[in-house]
């Protein structure tokens, strides 16, 4: 049991489960699904903020309600709110003092310095939290969750509202922590945000995990995109219409066979390309199927 960084066993409550999952040290698991699917609830239960009706959450073998587990598990809520009237550094110092109350091994200043560096917030350390932009607020939320060398991170919608640059930066920082052995459970309404980060994806709907697997397996399916000079009245069997032409899954057939079918239907093919199915498509398909 203690080989896993995080285990959830038969968790259920009014709006969640039953569900079980386990995270290895250094693993990044993404939870995707539409609004109201139960992603945030799952994280709140995992963080110990909500007690489930049944089941057990353990962090490195310890029950999450155990005070000894609290320094090991960090939680970033969506949206994150912090004490008013404080600077970034003061907010982190407040949390760091709580960590140092539990253990006198490290000084609060050292913890704050590390957290600022981990989240890339050193330049904003003296800014008031009320004046922070969205990207820095997300970084601060990430910093407080990671503060004190936590071994499990629960990040609720850390990419929501961020531009591509801020997303890439935060993604890199999360990946670096995972490379050091920190297990990360991360939720996102936007599956594309997790596509370059999560090694495993859990698709949620109505409080249950309806599909789960390694990202490489979920994205294994290849799609043939065909760009046409003029759209056909009706697509050939196995194809569907797109804005630029047609597309078809390559499961069970070759590219040549699919293109031959287009030629047989006398379609004006201008170009074609093969791509892998996106996580967004996988999630939407899963949602439609259920």
């Amino acid at each position, binding site marked *: 049991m203690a080989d896993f960084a995080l285990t959830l066993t038969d968790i259920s409550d009014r709006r969640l489960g039953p569900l079980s999952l386990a995270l290895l040290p250094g693993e990044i698991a993404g939870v995707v699904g539409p609004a109201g699917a139960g992603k945030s609830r799952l994280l709140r239960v995992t*963080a*110990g*903020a*909500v007690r489930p009706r049944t089941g057990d959450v353990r962090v490195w073998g310890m029950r999450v309600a155990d*005070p000894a587990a*609290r*320094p090991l*598990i*960090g*939680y970033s*809520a969506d949206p*994150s*709110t*912090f*004490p*008013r*009237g*404080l*600077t970034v550094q*003061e907010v982190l110092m*407040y*949390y760091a*003092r*709580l*960590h*140092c*109350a*539990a253990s006198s091994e490290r000084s609060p200043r050292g913890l704050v310095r590390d957290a600022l560096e981990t989240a890339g917030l050193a330049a904003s350390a003296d800014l*008031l939290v009320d004046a922070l932009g969205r990207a820095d607020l997300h970084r601060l939320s990430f910093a*407080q*969750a990671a*503060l*004190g060398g936590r071994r499990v991170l629960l990040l609720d919608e850390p990419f929501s509202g961020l531009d591509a640059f801020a997303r890439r930066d935060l993604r890199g920082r999360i990946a670096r922590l995972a490379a050091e052995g920190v297990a990360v459970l991360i939720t996102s309404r936007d599956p594309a945000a997790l596509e370059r980060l999560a090694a495993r994806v859990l698709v949620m709907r109505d409080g249950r995990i309806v599909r789960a697997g390694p990202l490489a397996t979920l994205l294994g399916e290849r799609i043939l995109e065909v760009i046409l000079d003029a759209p056909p009245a009706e697509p050939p069997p196995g194809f569907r219409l797109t804005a630029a032409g047609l597309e078809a899954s390559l499961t069970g057939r070759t590219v040549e066979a699919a293109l031959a079918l287009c030629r047989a239907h006398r379609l004006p093919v201008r170009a074609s390309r093969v791509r892998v199915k996106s996580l967004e498509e996988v999630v939407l398909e899963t949602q439609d199927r259920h």
Partner: protein
Amino acid sequence: MRFLHCVHAEFLLVAPRLTRTRLGIALLALGTTLVWLGAHALDALTVTLQAGALGSIIGVAAIVGDETDRVGLTTALSHPTTPHAIAAGRWLAIVVPASALVLVCTTAIGWRTNLVFAGVLASAAVSGFGMALVLWLGRGAALAFFLFMAVAGTVPPERLVDIARPGIVRLAAASAMELGPALWHYRDIADGDPGAIVHALAWTGLGILTARWLISRSR
């Protein structure tokens, strides 16, 4: 020891707020007004009791009244602390500036130790009650509590219920004023009345425990 460290961490939240939010200026305005009233209209005991009680209510609004402060408790509780430490630390963060205001006002109008004692105990009781009230009902409750303390809380219940309708309303009003924190009650602390002291201490403890329970529910 760990509990005290967590309480200390919560208490330290007050220092930046005194200078960066309206808390400092509001306490300063209250102190100035009370000292002026002490020189023209109010007796010294009323000034110190009002400084402790009204200073505490302003502190309650500033320390736990804001929506972000209450929502932020969820984040605070994800760190190694306890609802009890948060309640005790924030109570302390409310009481210390209010007690400092009592000291300043008493010094300005003429130092008497028994007045300071009454003012600080009134501050402790009102902080405990006010913190629980505002955590439960929000910042608007602080305004209502402030008005009650500034006006009705100074008058003994037998005088107030005389103007209310007889019957159940009268009984409820008299009971609330007898049981709840009110300045007419705490005037007797200055004379060393044990009943008044116990009343203030009971509201201090009960307020912190209720706040602790409300904070644990905000996880």
